[in-house]
Every structure is written in structure tokens, then in C-alpha cells.
């Protein structure tokens, strides 16, 4: 049987698609780069990754312009059918701007670009995205962003991951990652694709990619 195909979206300004593709491979999937002007997902793709970067140069608002491209129509149909979608960093911003996830990502309270390893605490252990970890268990994943403060009503989502310790960016309730109420669309600001190889100090990020194939 061939590997599960995972669409890895690319917009003008996407940066982290190569790392995301390697992470998909690390858990046994087959990544397929997908152009933002395509109107359908690649044939046979059963899950979608929206990688990080600065799509459309973050013009207007981060993720705003990318969220209005044709491929998002295909992603919305996929999500409505229960298909899994993982948005990372700018991908999370795109999911919020598209309405697939509630809320919006605002500039960090410090107005600084922050880049460091973070401990993320599992808040809701009942989603597929954290590999069966219990509530309160910690995942070590780096983050690198300027607009990472999630703002919205947490009750419209399921809060999957929170920053442990001090709030790094002013995110409401220290939220690092959420799913929609159905649980099939996941967005987070930290970068699990940079935590999939022991050389990088953590393989905790693999759980999020494994969830795409489950």
C-alpha cells in the first residue's frame, strides 16, 4: 500500500514548506506541494498542512490575503467533510482569517519577534493532535513569530496547547494552539515540524503530523 498523501500548501512567501514536508515523511506520509491558485487538493490527498512563513508579505493582516485564495475553498470543503487540517504559525493565521478556526492572531504584546524553544502544556487531551498525552503533559516545541497573540472567545474552540510558565506573547489564556469544536482542524503558533528530529533536541512535534495520517 502506498503512503498517505498529505497536501502541503504553498503561497507566495511561504517559508517552512520543506521542513513541513520532511516532518510528513518522518511519520510515513507522502507530502505533495500544492499551489495556492489550485482549486482542488491533489488527487488522493487525505490531509492538509498549511506551513509557516509570511504569505503575501503579511500585507493587510497576517494570513488575510492567503485565506482568500482558491485553494482555501478546497481546504474548506475538505474540512467540512471531516478531513484533517494542520496550520502552523502563518498557517494558523490563515485558518483564523478563513473562518475555519475562531479568533485572530494579533501582534505580540512586546511588539518583538520572539524565537525560542517553548514548553507547551496539553490542555485538552481528547483531540487526536497530541499523541495520547495526558492533560498537563509537556511538549517541547520551538516558536518564532511576531504576530502570535491569539485573541477570541476560547469557548468557540477546543484549547489543545498552552504556553507553560510565563505568557510569551499576550495570547488570551496563554493559548498556543486550538482546534475547531469538531477537532479536525488544528492551528498552533509553535513549529512542530522543527521538533521531529532528535538532532533538533525534541521529537514531540511528530504527534501533530502523525495525527494527519491517523
Amino acid at each position: 500500500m502506498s503512503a498517505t498523501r498529505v497536501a502541503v500548501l504553498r503561497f507566495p512567501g511561504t517559508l517552512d514548506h520543506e521542513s513541513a514536508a520532511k516532518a510528513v515523511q518522518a511519520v510515513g506520509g507522502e507530502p505533495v506541494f500544492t499551489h495556492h491558485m489550485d482549486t482542488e487538493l491533489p488527487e488522493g490527498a487525505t490531509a492538509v498542512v498549511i506551513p509557516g512563513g509570511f504569505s503575501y508579505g503579511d500585507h493587510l493582516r497576517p494570513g488575510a490575503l492567503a485565506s482568500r485564495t482558491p485553494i482555501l475553498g478546497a481546504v474548506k470543503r475538505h474540512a467540512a467533510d471531516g478531513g484533517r487540517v494542520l496550520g502552523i504559525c502563518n498557517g494558523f493565521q490563515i485558518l483564523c482569517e478563513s473562518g475555519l478556526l475562531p479568533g485572530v492572531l494579533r501582534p505580540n504584546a512586546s511588539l518583538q519577534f520572539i524565537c525560542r524553544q517553548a514548553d507547551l502544556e496539553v490542555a485538552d487531551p481528547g483531540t487526536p493532535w497530541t499523541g495520547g498525552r495526558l492533560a498537563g503533559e509537556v511538549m517541547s516545541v520551538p516558536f518564532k513569530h511576531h504576530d502570535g497573540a491569539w485573541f477570541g472567545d476560547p469557548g468557540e474552540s477546543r484549547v489543545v496547547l498552552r504556553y507553560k510558565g510565563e505568557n510569551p506573547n499576550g495570547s488570551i489564556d496563554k493559548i498556543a494552539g486550538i482546534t475547531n469544536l469538531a477537532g479536525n482542524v488544528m492551528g498552533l503558533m509553535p513549529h512542530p515540524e522543527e521538533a521531529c528530529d532528535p538532532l533538533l533536541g525534541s521529537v514531540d512535534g511528530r504527534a501533530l503530523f502523525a495525527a494527519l495520517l491517523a
Partner: protein
Amino acid sequence: MTLVIVTVMPKKGVLDPQGQAVQGALSHMGFADIGDVRVGKRIELEINGHDPAGQADKMCQDLLANQLIEDYSVEVPE
């Protein structure tokens, strides 16, 4: 062609770190009378056809403003 001016501002009550940073800088520069500062954006649209203000309003709702955190106004100068 009609010029339409859209102003997008952070909603009252939503933290505006950019406005706060500008306020801090102005205060450090010696502008002792400075109060609250809010930073938004002005978008100039040239629109053809019928009801340019109405078209601009639709553009604001669909793209130009995120109404979770931003308010907008539409103005057609004389």
C-alpha cells in the same frame, strides 16, 4: 472613477501595542500632554460603477477589516 477612503482602526477595548509604543516614544521625547494613541490604517480605493460606498462597505466586510478586532468607516469625499 470615484475615490473612496476607508479607515480601519483597532476596536476600542482591544489592546493596541503599536499605539502604546508610539505613545511611550512621544512621551519620552518630551510631549508631556500626550494621552491615548491608537494606530490604524487608511485605504484609498478607486471604484468604478454603481454605489462605490456600498461596494467599499462590502470590501471591508469581506477583506479589508477583521471585525473581531477592527472597526472601519467608509467616506466618499466631495
